[in-house]
């Protein structure tokens, strides 16, 4: 059934696979973002493998839940989640950002099956999700809409236009998640352009605010459950995370926002994650059909 609701242990395992995929695909593309994808890996995994009603075999099924990453630059985690969930073979991940293959630097509807709306310019995604949620309501559909935003992205005024809109129209089928990793390109979010107190801002804009540890799987599962039960207003999950989470030398360092690891760095990272670049590359390369479940070899 499309809502997998994996167990906490299974989710932890999947999140590990996703982190390995992220590091591996970046090692091969030698271009792309490391920090945000790794901080989003845990709540991303909960969304794809527990919370959301997804239909990878039929990406446009009308009863599926809708999801959109407003932070288009975190394609490594988006593509890894999609591949692990069965939208396309894991081997596709080895062609990230290359002229061949369908995995563009930023999400592109007409290149990648399962992407509903292209992205890459920050601040636009929540508005898109407002439209999806309103449309679903017009259709009397029960599908829910999930929007992933960044914390630096909160500086874009359009997000506050959308926040006002969602509250005005009481879109309780809309759930936003903010990857609150406290970093953006030029440094700490509070130094670049302070967004605190962020929870107060969302409350003042009429939203149900849920704060959680963005790396604690059970708490994340619970946060989305709370969001689902909140009626009459939209919910936002402030997921407190660590940029680069899972790779020692990347953690909490903004300089990893937009650069990939070298192959040596990637191998070191993958060893910290219980495998190696060669082993994991092999695992990805071996998976050429999304109809066959990928092996989970190497998962400790």
């Amino acid at each position: 059934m499309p809502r997998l609701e994996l167990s906490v242990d299974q989710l932890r395992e999947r999140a590990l696979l996703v982190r390995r995929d992220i590091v591996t695909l970046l090692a091969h593309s030698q271009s792309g973002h490391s920090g945000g994808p790794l901080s989003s890996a845990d709540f991303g995994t909960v969304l794809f493998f527990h919370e959301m009603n997804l239909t990878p075999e039929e990406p446009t099924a009308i009863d599926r839940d809708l999801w959109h990453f407003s932070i288009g630059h975190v394609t490594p985690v988006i593509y890894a989640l999609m591949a692990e969930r069965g939208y396309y073979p894991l081997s596709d991940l080895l062609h990230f950002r290359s002229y061949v293959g369908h995995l563009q630097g930023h999400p592109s509807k007409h290149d990648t099956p399962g992407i509903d709306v292209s992205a890459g310019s920050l601040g636009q995604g929540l508005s898109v999700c407002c439209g999806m949620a309103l449309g679903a309501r017009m259709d009397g559909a029960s599908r829910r809409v999930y929007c992933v935003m960044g914390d630096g992205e909160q500086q874009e005024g359009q997000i506050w236009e959308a926040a006002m809109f969602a509250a005005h129209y009481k879109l309780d089928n809309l759930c936003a998640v903010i990857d609150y990793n406290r970093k953006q390109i030029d440094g700490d979010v509070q130094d670049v352009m302070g967004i605190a107190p962020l929870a107060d801002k969302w409350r003042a804009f009429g939203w149900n605010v849920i704060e959680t540890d963005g790396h604690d799987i059970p708490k994340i599962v619970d946060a989305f459950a709370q969001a689902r039960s909140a009626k009459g207003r939209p919910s936002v999950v402030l997921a407190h995370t660590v940029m680069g989470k899972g790779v020692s030398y990347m953690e909490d360092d903004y300089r990893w926002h937009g650069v990939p690891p070298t192959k040596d760095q990637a191998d070191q990272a993958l060893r910290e994650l219980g495998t190696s670049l060669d082993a994991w590359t092999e695992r990805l390369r071996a998976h050429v059909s999304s109809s066959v479940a990928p092996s989970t070899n190497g998962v400790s």
Partner: protein
Amino acid sequence: MSQASAAPPPASGAAPSLTKPEMKKTREGFGHGLVQLGETNPNIVVLVGDLSGSTNVNFFAERFPERFVQVGIAEQNMMCVAAGLAAVGKIPFLATYGAFASCRAADQIRVTVAYTDLPVKIGGAHGGISVGPDGATHQAMEEIAIIRSIPNMRMVVPCDYWETKKATLAIASDPHPYYLRFGRESVPVVTTPDTPFVIGKANVMREGKDLAIIACGVMVYEALVAAEQLAARGVQARVLNVHTLKPLDEEAIARAARECGAIVTAEEHQIHGGLGSAVAEVVVATHPVPMELVAVRDRFGRSGKPDELMAAFGIKSPDIVKAADRALG
């Protein structure tokens, strides 16, 4: 093929009068078109940014309140909310002043609407200097340049009430993003309910082989008046109504260059990047001939009466006649 959609020659009694033209608002054509669409297609939804009356989406709002979405003063959000609605199967039309539709939400048009190629229909009101007393900030004259530059976007600039209504109906059934530009004031009706309208096919409003006047929007009327005056002097000017700026009817334009040998373009838009340069792109690549561009000469508008401004900014029929004389050298 353009011939196929040629308007009935002015000879025919059906042709509207140029001397005492009926005056109607193009934005009402938009408003009435939306109501007609609403009656036939349940997926049509309409969004507005606190400008229901001046864009005439109020007609739709009264008839179909449940499919009308008031977004308030937030054009960026409106553009992307429309995209989200389109992503779940709706056919969203949104409306605001053209200055804000094209500029305030340009990035949203480019990335979310056009790159995704969603069927969002953008109604840009108050296009051109004829907006009048509101002044420069509200006189949109850059939309053609901006929208033409964005891949996947289509654009229609209808010439009168009937054409605006037909365009509104036509763009609803093409699953791509469109920008529809219309104006504020009542303007002369130069087509009839039966004048053919085919997206991408220019209409020959008047035949002629000495010169071609290529126009869009309210300037089609000015072009027809200019053609009359030129005819009185023995110059037979073809008047081509290029209502679709994108995709452009390159064949009709190339034929005009080849058959007429000289071209004058006329538009209520800035001279850089508008209809004139779109036509020039085609002319130099197919059949280079002398051209004169009648347009606003890279200046901001100002307050005044619509006619007063069109004259002051050099885009009335006499300016077209002068340009024709220059083009014919």
